[in-house]
């Protein structure tokens, strides 16, 4: 088990290396010049050239790559062109909102999706099952930004239960913090609830046909105990897999949701950095995200062995 973890962590090094080189080259191959953006609409060609010089953008590509990777290995993500700050510092400032949004979304997703999936499986073929499935299809179909604006319109502007936009740090108090995260979390979680409820239903439905479920009923257990103790845990592996993929996809969803709700998180940082051709920031954000993917995948694999004693590493 311990050896497995070490092995997997070591395997992240080449993955991150490839991601680094790939992102670096892709950014340079796409059109757009950071110096032109920085110089603004009225910048003269001389000013632009001067900025290029000072940012080191005139060096050959491989030299630029070498300098960047060299700094990276020393833990230095470089300076943001646009924000004129250390990229590392910039990311740290933006982590909290994104992490908070991701966690509340995840909690909401699991708390809703797993129970309705299990109930749909248990009541399969009834109107409850059909309602859950209908919600699932609808949840898949509505784009995040459409749902975001609808929720804002209904719950923030008409009913005035929640603020329209904005973010408060957790140090400003837990309720203001949570209050502003509710609508964004609902917006972001609907599609994952749809996805995970479906997978849960399918997985539990399959397990409910197993012989040991019949054994459990023959012991005199109540349906809820059978579902919780016998069905759900055996059905969990595919569910956890999809939750893992969901967390990875969440990062994509965060970009849109943060824009809709004006939350100053990593998603917004990414959008701003891309618009400003802020190469060091884009590169750093993508590397951080890739690392998170790899770690989530590792955690998912480790969870398998907790859930199913037959899986051992």
């Amino acid at each position: 088990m311990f050896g497995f973890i070490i092995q997997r962590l070591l395997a992240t090094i080449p993955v991150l290396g490839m991601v680094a080189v790939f992102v670096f080259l892709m950014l340079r191959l796409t059109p757009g010049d950071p110096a032109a953006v920085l110089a603004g609409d009225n910048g003269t060609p001389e000013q632009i050239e001067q900025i290029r010089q000072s940012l080191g953008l005139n060096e050959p590509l491989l030299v630029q790559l070498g300098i960047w990777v060299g700094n990276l290995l020393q833990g230095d993500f470089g300076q943001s062109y646009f924000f004129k700050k250390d990229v590392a510092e910039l990311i740290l400032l933006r982590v909290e909102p994104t992490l908070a949004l991701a966690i509340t979304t995840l909690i909401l997703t699991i708390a809703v999706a797993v129970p309705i999936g299990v109930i749909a499986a248990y009541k399969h073929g009834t109107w409850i099952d059909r309602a859950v499935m209908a919600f699932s299809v609808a949840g898949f179909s509505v784009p995040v930004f459409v749902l975001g604006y609808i929720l804002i319109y209904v719950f923030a502007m008409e009913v005035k239960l929640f603020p329209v936009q904005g973010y408060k740090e957790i140090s400003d108090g837990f309720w203001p913090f949570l209050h502003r995260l509710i609508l964004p979390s609902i917006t972001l979680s609907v599609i994952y609830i749809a996805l995970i409820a479906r997978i849960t239903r399918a997985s539990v439905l399959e397990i409910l046909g197993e012989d040991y479920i019949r054994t459990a009923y023959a012991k005199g257990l109540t349906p809820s105990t059978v579902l919780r103790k016998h069905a759900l845990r055996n059905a969990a592996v595919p569910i956890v897999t999809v939750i893992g993929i969901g967390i990875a996809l969440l990062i994509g969803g965060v970009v849109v949701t943060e824009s809709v709700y004006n939350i100053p998180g990593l998603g917004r940082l990414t959008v701003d950095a891309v618009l400003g051709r802020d190469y060091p920031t884009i590169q750093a954000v993508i590397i951080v995200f890739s690392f998170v993917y790899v770690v989530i995948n590792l955690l998912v694999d480790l969870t398998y062995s907790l859930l199913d004693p037959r899986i051992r590493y």
Partner: protein
Amino acid sequence: MTDAPTQPILEIDNLTIDLPEGNDRRHAVDGVSISVGPREIVCLVGESGSGKSVTAFSIMGLLPKGQLTPSGGAIRLMGENVLEASEERLRELRGARMSMIFQEPMTALNPTMTCGDQIEEVLTTHTDLDQATRQTKILDILEQVQLPDPPRMAASYPHQLSGGQRQRIMIAMALVLEPVLLIADEPTTALDVTTQEQILKLMKEIQKTHDTAVLFITHDFGVVAEIADRVAVMQWGKVVEEGSSEAVLKRPQAPYTRMLIGAVPSFTPHGRPREAKAPVVLATDGLCKTYGGGGFFQRARPVHAAQDVSLEVRRGETLGIVGESGSGKSTVARCIARLIDPTSGHIYLDSDDIAQASQSRLRSLRRRVQIVFQDPYRSLNPRRTVGASIVEGPMNYGMSGAAAYERARELMSLVRLDPTALDRFPHQFSGGQRQRICIARALAMEPDLLIADEAVSALDVSVQAQVLELLDDIRRRLDLAMLFITHDLRVAAQVCDTVAVMHRGQVVEYGDAASVFSDPQHDYTRALFAAAPGRGFDFGGALASG
């Protein structure tokens, strides 16, 4: 058996259970009355579809809702009609007053809970015992079902135990609260004969010490002869004969019972003369198959699935490979068909050594060896017509579609099926018919060697007898060499000319069927014979003479 004044533990009175609309018959169970007295073992015998399992599940109230509904009669457990009991009352009864063990110990236990926890669940559901008492009770019952090292067993997960051990866990779980009634649904069918013998013995012992009434569902008259006090035979949802074990087995009255008992293959070999000069179709020489052996990152211990297996089959003859699960008999068959690659040794088909033949050479050899597999329900593609399944092979080897279908029609008559049924799908056929189709599919390739891998094990005895007879007829007519893999000694006695007994990857005894059966040399062969249920009772012979 029952003492005069005592009330029966279980009394099924004129029970009728409806099938959903659109089935071939209206009732799954039709006016069945059976009673089980205190300390009595009643066997409910029948073939698949007879309604025996439905009856058992209705007692537990575990029938699938909306599909099977009891519509008449009563099931009284100690006088209480369980058909009228509420869901809550039924839950109180299940596991405490009546409990059940199932056919497949491999799948009947939850793979994610330890065995101890699964037994404990019965205790926590039905009693208020404290943790320490529960533990003592668990260890005590594990001891009683004769599992070695009870604390370790309690801490084990099901996948860490063998089939026999798992069935003991099931029995422990069923008996931990001393129920008055134990329902056993084919509890030994999935087990090897030697394990089956031990489990039957255990059930008899434990039934005595616990004073439990047992309703034992089985299709196997050998098992009936071993364990039953009384027998009820079911056909088409009705009880056709009931009586003491002795009376039903020795003097069956109903024609159906007579047919069933007559269909049980006899232990006496068929005694067909062998033709000494027939050419050898298949010979293996020192065939070995080793799995694992530890890669760079693993430290797996190598498993010798087959070791130094040397056999031969002559044209027109049947070689039986007999053994229990894990003995390596299927491994040998798969190596011969080159579905898996042997580790070392030679396989001669006529004079070609195919043991290490390349994939391209194998293509032309494949036609010459064909297999019929165990489970006819899973070995035909459900989405293709049976005709398409039969002609696929020959057409793959260049036969024209019209010729292949013509051949398929001939084969359908050869296996005694309607030649016009080629455009039907597998689900429209019964298990026995599907196995005939599998045989036709194999024969379509005009093989030199036909391998039957447990080909009749999944079939009911009466169907089994017909398929065995068909296989024998085909072997004779086409002068085929046949390799017959089975765990069932009775079946082997009926079809094989020579027999190889396998144990832990090795052939421990190999010779003429007549001599192996009449005078087994190896200890393991003797143990295997001794374990066969109903050995004191020569079914096929009993009826022929009686």
